[in-house]
């Protein structure tokens, strides 16, 4: 091959050479987790360590994604690279699904197995008799020791139903935005993508008010036995994912404003849209199994 090969021979699969971002990321995460552990152990300087780590993680994301966006804009990614990104994102989302599955599994196990067993069901008559004699296995429950004291739950067809409507609507708006992008209608794209993340943040806001209500008026807390544990961990991790998803939507929106993406080339948009749908589906599971049934 006589001609000097540039870093991005048009048809070739682009292999980046040397990058400082991963090592920056690994060191930052190390510092951040060290800080978090110190925080939990009540070490004085811990907040500084944690926030320093956190800030450098953000810096890493900014730098790393910045580099990738730059390369993408420079046309260095051929169809093969695009496909790798797609597959990577898909399997990442699958791993997230499995993370939530652990918590849904815990909820299932508690409701259908361990709580009835505590109440003496099946072969567990004796454990109930000797250990937890007066325990009535109902759901919701905070267990035979009534951990955290009496509490009330949040009815499904109040705020949670509204939140369901909000997230489902945001699923529609992002689809409209996607069609607009494919049709080259940038105006519509900007409006509907903007609407999507506004709905997302609104959802998070409503969840926050719901949490405040639960803590202050219903005495429903993370410490309310197994009900409180599953309720807050599931909705909490979901809320975290909505927040992250909404932030990603904002980034995509800013890129749209800068004129990025073409009707054919917009992997980042699609990746975030997939993520958003995933968050949506998890919510439906939550609505049904945590709030409703």
């Amino acid at each position: 091959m006589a001609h000097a090969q540039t870093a991005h021979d048009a048809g070739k699969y682009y292999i980046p050479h040397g990058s400082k971002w991963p090592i920056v990321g690994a060191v930052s995460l190390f510092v951040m987790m060290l800080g978090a552990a110190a925080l939990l152990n009540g070490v004085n300087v811990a907040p500084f360590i944690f926030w320093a780590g956190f800030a450098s993680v953000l810096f890493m994301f900014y730098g790393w994604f910045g580099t990738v966006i730059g390369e993408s804009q420079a046309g260095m990614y051929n169809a093969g690279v695009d496909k790798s990104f797609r597959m990577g994102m898909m399997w990442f989302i699958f791993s997230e699904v499995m993370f939530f599955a652990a918590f849904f599994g815990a909820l299932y196990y508690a409701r259908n197995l361990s709580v009835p067993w505590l109440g003496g069901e099946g072969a567990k008559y004796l454990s109930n008799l000797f250990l937890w004699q007066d325990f009535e296995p109902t759901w919701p429950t905070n267990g035979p020791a009534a951990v955290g004291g009496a509490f009330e739950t949040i009815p499904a067809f109040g705020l949670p139903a509204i939140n369901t409507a909000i997230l489902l609507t945001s699923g529609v708006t992002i689809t409209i935005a996607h069609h607009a992008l494919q049709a080259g209608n940038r105006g519509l794209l900007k409006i509907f993508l903007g609407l999507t993340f506004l709905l997302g943040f609104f959802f998070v806001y409503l969840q926050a008010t719901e949490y405040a209500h639960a803590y202050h008026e219903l005495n429903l807390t993370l410490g309310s036995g197994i009900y409180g544990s599953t309720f807050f961990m599931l909705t909490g991790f979901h809320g975290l994912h909505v927040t992250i998803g909404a932030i990603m939507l904002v980034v995509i929106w800013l890129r749209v404003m800068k004129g990025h993406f073409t009707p054919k080339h917009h992997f980042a948009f699609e990746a975030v849209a997939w993520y958003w749908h995933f968050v949506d589906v998890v919510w439906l599971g939550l609505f049904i199994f945590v709030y409703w049934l």
Partner: protein
Amino acid sequence: MSASQTHGHAAAHDHHDEHGPAKGIMRWLTTTNHKDIGTLYLVFSLIMFFTGGAMALVIRAELFMPGMQLVDPQFFNTMTTVHALIMVFGAVMPATVGLANWMIPLQIGAPDMALPRMNNFSFWLLVAAFSLLILSLFMPGGGPAAGWTLYPPLVLQTGDAFPLAIFAIHLAGASSIMGAINIIVTIMNLRAPGMTLLKMPLFTWTWLITAYLLIAVMPVFAGAVTMLLTDHFFGTTFFAAAGGGDPVLYQHIFWFFGHPEVYIMILPAFGIVSEIIPTFSRKKLFGYDAMVYATASIAFLSFIVWAHHMFTVGMPLAGQMFFMLSTMLIAVPTGVKVFNWTATMWKGSLTFEPPMLFALAFLFLFTIGGFSGLMMAIAPADFQYHDTYFVVAHFHYVLVPGAVFAIMAAVYYWLPKWTGHLYDMKLANWHFWLSTIFVNLLFFPQHFLGLAGMPRRIPDYSTQFADWNMVSSIGAFGFGLSQLLFVYIIVKCARGGAKASDHVWEGAYNHGLEWTVPSPAPYHTFEDAPVVK
């Protein structure tokens, strides 16, 4: 399978500087090259193997004689716990990931891993994780000591080490997930033209399936330890009956991860053995398709057997029956594999170079571990075996002369391809025989101890167990010392030695694209995809 390569490496010369490795330490910190990253993983794994090994020797030294000699019980428990965590997540898994990094692109004709920057991230995150874990040993209250399974409520009594250990697992898990995604994407997207799925070498195949297992179960493990964390610090009661939770719930979630995890360690080993036996039998692998399907069925079954680790927790009878039978079912595809390896050698023209020796030892000794596994799968019998040294003997047979021997076989098989030099075969033979003799001396007596009722995870024992414990400890030190030879052989080979040919092994013709590139493999290979016919 044959490959025609138009002009891969010859072109490497007129590339500008971007194409060579960077200089000094920055090369290793910032590299995106699959060979560099493979090397990093392998070196890391070796260091961890010796760290975890030193801890094992502390355990075996204490158990050399009955009575309390060297360490206090808390520290003893820390050693068993951290030894296991290091061996599993720091030695065996990174070793197979390192091999995957080096060999998968070479075997499928890919220019590199599909997501090279993330590849580097996976590696350095692992270093971050193990720094946290090692740090946890020096915390007030001592290191984690509740066993590598981290069962509550015991694990919740861990001191300041607790959050460090949990976060170490989070980071190691993230590293594994990213590594797995990279492997899947590389295999699914970057195969050379003509390299159809059913032409892929078995090492690549087994890794593809392993990667799916990883993505499916590492997040579940992350969830489980997150629940431990909130139970400890934030007042949740996932695993406390008082609040309506159940400590057994943890065991279910853990083993839903844990059983596939053992296949994550052994499937790549299966792949390695399936590469080596044909080469040194000078035959094609017997029943290639069956091997692929057997691997896939093992992977599938591994998701529905987890509670065989929990026969004694008081599961309903139906549960015990189900998990007993599903576990035994795994013997079927595993039997297919052992049969096929044996049939590959049938009427082959066999030679016994070091990789083949290790692969053969794998075949016999892994199978011993498989049989003791079957014994424990019988629920009523397991009531006896559970938590005794019989279990320790079982999992060490599958892990040490199983996974670890396969990894050593792989190193001896591909080292000349990596370094361009042949290693000292005579010393390697010594390494093999010493390892094989000592590993049996180390672990075989533990069967007897277990059957006689010696519990695992204890620093002291009744005098009736004294003899076999002493034998086992002698085996342990012998095995540990023999591994110094391994390091010596590798270092010597990296520094020089007789020049290796491109196909290295006489029988390696027609066994994978990795033998079509020069030895040592140039920094960049297959920049133009070879065509596989």
